[in-house]
């Protein structure tokens, strides 16, 4: 220990100098260990004596988070490292600190030392990327990979004093990449393998030489034996492995399940001699993994890389390897299964051919025994007798059967390869010409031209087979050629004979052409002469031509024709032997083809005219047609047709009583025929009986589902056929009888259907009543319809009448509470209908209503109406003015009508409920304050088209404290929907609140400018705002207003043209600056004026200028100015609507200051009885001023007074906060008075009729006024009274007026 002391350094040399002390404090574990290390005992000595650069390097390393190592001293190479480096050292830590390099890194020193030496000597740094160092880790060598650099540490004297080594371990990435590469290699290797062995060997080969898998072995199950045997293994190991998995695993204590992975800890113990085989690469451990599924399940044994830990990554890798092989095994299994299936199919095919051969043989014997005696019988019978005709039919069809059997037999022989051609050298041209000539008579009958152009062509053929070939092709040509020609040409060139048979028939579609000649394939064609056929003809041709060493080729175009070209090798030796075919005219091919073209005898078409029922028979086989006629004609008249199309045409002409049809027919098959019959209203009811050779439940059900009334599989007995046709005919007759009796019912049904249509279009209770009233029913004395609708709370019933009833009754019974003693209430309560033949005989309980209505109702039926949930929702009353009895039919239709009505009513109520929710929402936002007595106000809101109900338009009325003043506003926030509605309601509230403190337009608009700037979506809203002041005497009314970007208010004065108030215009709120921002205007109002505020939706129409809209509104408003404001609003809304309705939402507000003018009067009073005389006196004064006829003054005063009293007591419940308004107009000599309240009139009008007073009130109103109209809405009730000739004419203007 030295006594050398530097200032600021600890006195004890064992303590660290300040720079290192600071570094170790930041150095974590290694900092602590460095500080605690006894450096005084170390060759490097105490740190206080270390050079500055050394200390700096140490400080750098200790404080870094990157793995770093220092080798100090270029010969001894002492280690200093940081915390990040500890995992690299693993169990060498912490001893490695201060240790010499060769001891710390003894296991890899051989690799490391040369690099260090080179740095020390040359000063050049090394760079190692992903270098593998087999470090001892946890007692074993492990493959570990590092990316690092060695660089020199240079002191102040220029010499190297150590080596700096930042290092990064990359083992995980390197190993993952290597294993992924192997998995890819395996996947690629197994891709094209088809067998299990190939797949296993390819996978094993891909693993060869890979360090991660020193060896692999695949044990795979055998689907047949269940043994799990070795299929592939690494070549070095394969000889050491047992053949079966069972043997391999007996030595190991492992579970016998194949589902789980198993770790083999001692590979040498499991596999003898493996250590010698693999030497240093020999793994200690192996993994046994499940492989494959089902019967082929086995195991994959994978040796573990001895330099790798068996960690999760390694296990995962091995599992992926096993999975890959498993999927390869699975696809190999399915490939093998497909191979087997193909073999099995081929086998099946052989079996079928063998079967066909046997069956054909078996057929031949009985056929021969049928044909022989048949020929004899035919010879013995009298020619042209009925018997001989029948026998001829039998022979023809037995011959046909024989031909089919022969074809089948030939065919199956060819298939089985047992057919041998007895070829002789013949002139195929002459032979073909001979054979073809047998069709000439037949072609003539069918209207076909048969052209034979046969040049000599010598070839070796079996004449019998050739005959079959030509007959088959020709009969096919005849079958599918309806018009034109069939041409047969033969010629030969040097090598080949060409035989071409060409027709102008229907041709074959391209897709079908490719399959032609396939066994049993039949091109789908309904356009031939017959659809009979087995589908072996052309494939037989092909087989037979093959036997002649020839080729056959089909060329065809749909609609143009077909050409069959047969080429035979030309005979090179010998002379042609003359060969003439015999008996060709009796050949079954020709006979059969003759059936298709047989012209029908006349009697097949013309049914004998008698009164028997007519049966139409459709079948394309002439024999079958004849047979059916023989069977059916003794019982019914018959008409015969050969195909479906003809059947349909004939049916339309002769209207058969029943149709018997085959299924398979040319042109239109049986199913298509039935569909056409069912689609023709005149034929639809005709019973159809279907015949088909296709038997089996499936075919029968197909027949019925196709629309057949009955289905008879062939063969059938004659009796069965007759029975079935008879059954069909009699049931059809029954149905006809039923139809006649149901005609009357149909008329009733039609009436109901018409009523139903009328009801369906009804959208209100009133419309239902009207629709019911309009229906024409049997009863001559149509009842008055009275529809009662129960409100949603079940407290009151509202009545709608279909026919005008006296207004008194309508007014008294428009609404009734559920405790009123009237019939509909009880019907609704009990849910039971009431039938009253005479109201006067009803119990005293109904005395009052009976007396009240005795003029109108003396008998009635009242039905409860129920909703879909069974709840009673109303009643349907049918009222007659005279007593009457009801017959059961009438009661029945009453009940039916009630049923129809209730479903419609229920639907309407549901719609109304939904509508009300939306309207309530808007109404909530836009309540109209009618509290002001300064003016009469009305407003309407109309939602725009399809848009959401809520919108951005508002109206507002604010009664002001100052007597005679009221503020009004209409505004429009940009946009629709909830967001606009919210912005709208906030602006509206702001207008209302500001108006209450300072109502002047300047103040309100200024506040709104400021406020709108803070409300989302409120900028640029347009507003018109006005304050109406009726003045102290009501005669000097004026309006001060400001109109912020909004359409101008319209002023309609009694004697002047309507004007738009445009002087007070200014920009929209919270919008651009403008000198007009404070603009306010004032306008005097003549008594009787109306001001209209509205939103742009009212006047705007697409394609129009705004001025056009303004003009339209001006005209409409002038025309209707002398109406009460409520009516004015409603009318303007209707008149201004664009065709197709408003697309934007619309707000309209009308205000009429209270006044007494030359032709009008308006007053608003609080709903208090104290007010009635006040308003009466004002009205009386006004009446005098307009020159009322004194004789009618009392009428006007009394009726109006009664209406006001009603409005106060019933409409407003005498609530003085509510108001009642009165607007009276003089038009010519007439006076009309409209009394409005905001009440719902939810009170009980029919109950109050029991109160005599109100009854008298209504009697007075109706008795004194010439016309009374009551309009009720959710906004309130309006009663309009009209008094004709109430004003005295100015003298001399009207004739006949006496003093």
């Amino acid at each position, binding site marked *: 220990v030295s006594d050398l002391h530097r200032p600021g350094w600890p006195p004890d040399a064992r303590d660290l100098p300040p720079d290192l002390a600071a570094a170790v404090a930041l150095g974590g574990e290694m900092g602590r260990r460095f500080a605690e290390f006894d450096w005084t005992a170390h060759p490097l000595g105490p740190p206080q004596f270390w050079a500055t650069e050394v200390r700096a390097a140490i400080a750098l390393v200790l404080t870094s988070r990157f793995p770093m190592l220092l080798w100090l001293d270029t010969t001894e190479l002492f280690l200093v490292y940081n915390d990040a480096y500890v995992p690299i050292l693993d169990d060498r830590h912490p001893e490695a600190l201060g240790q010499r390099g060769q001891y710390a890194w003894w296991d890899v020193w051989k690799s490391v030392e040369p690099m260090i030496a080179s740095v020390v000597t040359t000063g050049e740094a090394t760079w190692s990327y992903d270098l593998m160092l087999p470090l001892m880790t946890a007692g074993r060598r492990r493959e570990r990979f590092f990316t690092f650099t060695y660089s020199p540490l240079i002191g102040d004297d220029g010499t190297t004093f150590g080596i700096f080594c930042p290092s990064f371990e990359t083992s995980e990435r390197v190993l993952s990449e290597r294993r992924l590469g192997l998995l890819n290699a395996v996947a690629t290797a197994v891709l094209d393998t088809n067998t299990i062995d190939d797949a296993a060997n390819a996978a094993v080969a891909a693993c060869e030489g890979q360090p991660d898998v020193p060896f692999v072995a695949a044990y795979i199950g055998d689907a047949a034996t269940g043994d799990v045997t070795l299929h592939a293994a690494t070549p070095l190991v394969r000889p050491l492995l047992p053949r079966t998995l069972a043997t391999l695993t007996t030595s190991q204590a492992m579970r016998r399940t194949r589902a789980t992975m198993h770790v083999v800890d001692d590979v040498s113990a499991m596999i003898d001699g493996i250590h010698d085989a693999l030497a240093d690469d020999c793994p200690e451990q192996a993994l046994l993994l499940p492989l494959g599924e089902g019967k082929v399940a086995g195991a994959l044994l994978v040796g573990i890389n001895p330099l790798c830990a068996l960690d999760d990554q390694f296990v995962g890798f091995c599992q992926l390897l096993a999975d890959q092989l498993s999927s390869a095994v699975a696809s190999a299994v399915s490939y093998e299964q497909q191979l087997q299936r193909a073999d099995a199919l081929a086998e099946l095919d052989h079996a079928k051919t063998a079967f066909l051969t046997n069956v054909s043989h078996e057929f031949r014997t009985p056929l021969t025994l049928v044909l022989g005696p048949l020929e004899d019988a035919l010879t013995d019978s009298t020619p042209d007798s009925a018997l001989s005709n029948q026998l001829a039919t039998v022979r023809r069809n037995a011959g046909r059967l024989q031909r089919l059997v022969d074809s089948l037999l030939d065919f199956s022989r060819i298939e089985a390869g047992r057919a041998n051609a007895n070829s002789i050298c013949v002139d195929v041209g002459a032979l073909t010409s001979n054979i073809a000539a047998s069709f000439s008579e037949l072609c003539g009958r069918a209207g076909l031209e048969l052209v034979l152009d046969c040049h000599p062509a010598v070839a070796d053929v079996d004449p019998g087979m050739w005959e079959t070939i030509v007959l088959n092709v020709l009969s096919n040509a005849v079958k599918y050629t309806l018009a034109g020609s069939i041409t047969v040409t033969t010629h030969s060139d040097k090598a080949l004979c060409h035989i071409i048979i060409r027709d102008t028939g229907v041709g074959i579609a391209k897709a079908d052409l490719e399959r032609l000649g396939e066994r049993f394939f039949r091109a789908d064609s309904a356009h031939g002469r017959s659809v009979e056929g087995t589908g072996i003809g052309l494939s037989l041709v092909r087989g037979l031509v093959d036997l002649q060493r020839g080729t056959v080729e089909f060329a065809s175009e749909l609609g143009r024709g077909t050409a069959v070209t047969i080429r035979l090798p030309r005979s090179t030796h010998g002379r042609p032997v003359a060969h003439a075919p015999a008996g060709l005219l009796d050949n079954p091919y020709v006979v059969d083809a003759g059936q298709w073209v047989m012209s029908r005898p006349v009697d097949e078409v013309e049914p004998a005219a008698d009164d028997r029922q007519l049966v139409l028979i459709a079948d394309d086989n002439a024999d079958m047609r004849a047979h059916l006629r023989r069977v059916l004609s003794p019982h019914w008249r018959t008409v015969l047709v050969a195909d479906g199309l003809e059947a349909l045409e004939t049916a339309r002409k002769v209207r058969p009583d029943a149709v018997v049809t085959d299924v398979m027919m040319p042109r239109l098959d049986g199913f298509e025929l039935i569909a056409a019959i069912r689609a023709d209203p005149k034929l639809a009811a005709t019973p159809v009986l279907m015949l088909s050779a296709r038997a089996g439940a499936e075919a029968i059900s197909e027949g019925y589902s196709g629309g057949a009334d009955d289905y008879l599989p062939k063969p059938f007995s004659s009796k069965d056929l007759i029975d079935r046709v008879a059954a069909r005919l009699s049931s059809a007759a029954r149905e006809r009888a039923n139809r006649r009796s149901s005609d009357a019912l149909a008329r009733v049904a039609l009436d109901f259907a018409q009523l139903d249509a009328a009801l369906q279009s009804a959208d209100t209770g009133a419309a239902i009543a009207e629709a019911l009233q309009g229906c024409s029913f049997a009863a001559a004395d149509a009842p008055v319809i009275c529809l009662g609708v129960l409100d949603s709370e079940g407290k009151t019933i509202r009545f709608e009448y279909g026919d005008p009833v006296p207004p008194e009754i309508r007014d008294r019974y428009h609404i009734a509470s559920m405790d009123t003693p009237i019939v509909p209430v009880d019907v609704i309560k009990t849910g039971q209908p009431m039938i009253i033949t005479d109201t006067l005989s009803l119990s005293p309980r109904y005395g009052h209503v009976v007396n009240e209505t005795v003029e109108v109702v003396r008998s009635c039926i009242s039905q409860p109406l129920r909703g879909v949930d069974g709840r009673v929702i109303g009643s349907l009353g049918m009222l007659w003015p005279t007593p009457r009895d009801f017959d059961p039919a009438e009661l029945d239709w009453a009940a039916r009508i009630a049923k129809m009505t209730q479903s419609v009513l229920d639907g309407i109520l549901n719609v109304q409920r939904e509508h009300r929710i939306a309207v309530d929402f808007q109404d909530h936002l836009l309540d109209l304050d009618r509290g002001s007595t300064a003016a009469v106000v009305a407003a309407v809101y109309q939602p725009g088209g399809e848009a959401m109900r809520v919108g951005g338009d508002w109206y507002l009325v604010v009664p002001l404290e100052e007597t005679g003043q009221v503020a009004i506003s209409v505004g429009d926030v940009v946009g629709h929907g909830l967001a606009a509605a919210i912005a709208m309601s906030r602006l509206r509230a702001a207008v209302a609140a500001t108006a209450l403190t300072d109502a002047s337009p300047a103040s309100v608009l200024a506040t709104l400018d400021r406020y709108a700037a803070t409300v989302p979506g409120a900028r640029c809203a347009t507003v018109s705002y006005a304050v109406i002041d009726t003045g102290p005497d009501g005669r000097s009314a004026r309006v001060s207003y400001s109109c912020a970007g909004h359409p101008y208010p319209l002023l309609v004065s009694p004697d002047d043209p309507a004007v738009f108030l445009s002087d007070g215009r200014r920009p929209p709120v919270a919008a651009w600056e403008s000198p007009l921002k404070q603009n306010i205007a004032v306008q005097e109002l003549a008594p009787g004026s109306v001001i209209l505020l509205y939103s742009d939706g009212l006047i705007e129409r697409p394609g129009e200028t705004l001025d056009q809209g303004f003009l339209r509104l001006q005209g409409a408003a002038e025309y209707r100015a002398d109406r009460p404001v409520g009516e004015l609003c409603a009318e303007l809304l209707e008149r201004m609507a664009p065709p197709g309705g408003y697309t934007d939402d619309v707000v309209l507000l009308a205000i009429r200051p209270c006044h007494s003018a030359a032709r009008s009067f308006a007053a608003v009073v609080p709903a208090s009885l104290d007010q009635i005389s006040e308003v009466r006196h004002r009205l009386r004064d006004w009446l005098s001023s307009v020159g009322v006829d004194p004789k009618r003054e009392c009428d006007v005063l009394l009726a109006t007074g009664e209406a006001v*009293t009603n409005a106060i007591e019933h409409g407003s419940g005498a609530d003085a906060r509510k108001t009642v308004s009165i607007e009276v107009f003089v038009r010519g000599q007439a006076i009309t008075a409209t009394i409005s309240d905001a009440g719902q009139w939810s009170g009980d009008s029919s109950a109050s009729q029991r109160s*005599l007073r109100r009854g008298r009130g209504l009697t*007075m109103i109706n008795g004194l006024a010439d016309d009374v109209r009551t309009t009720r809405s959710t906004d309130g009730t309006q009663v309009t009274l009209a008094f004709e000739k109430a004003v005295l004419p100015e003298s001399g203007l009207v004739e006949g007026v006496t003093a």
Partner: protein
Amino acid sequence: MSRAVFQLHVPEGDDVSTPIEVTVTGEVDASNVREFTRAVSDVPGERPLILQLSSIKYLDSAGFSALDRMLAEDAIRIVLSPDSFMYRVATLMCMPIHDDADAARRAINEG
């Protein structure tokens, strides 16, 4: 605010002939019908009395109801001259009226 006002003119003095004839003027409506009813019933003397309504300026259905109850109690006979303001309405309401007081008296005396 001017409420409806009516006046009852009851003859005073000892020589008043029975039945007593009370003349009503002014207006009767729903706002003062109670006072009217009370005032009529407060008139002393025999019943029925004669209610002279020819000069009344206004009588609404509330008033008619009040009269109806009085008639039912046989408390009044009503006189309305054919040229009076309310005559047409009373006819419309089918109210039993007499053209003049004498006719009303005769009716009372005849029972």
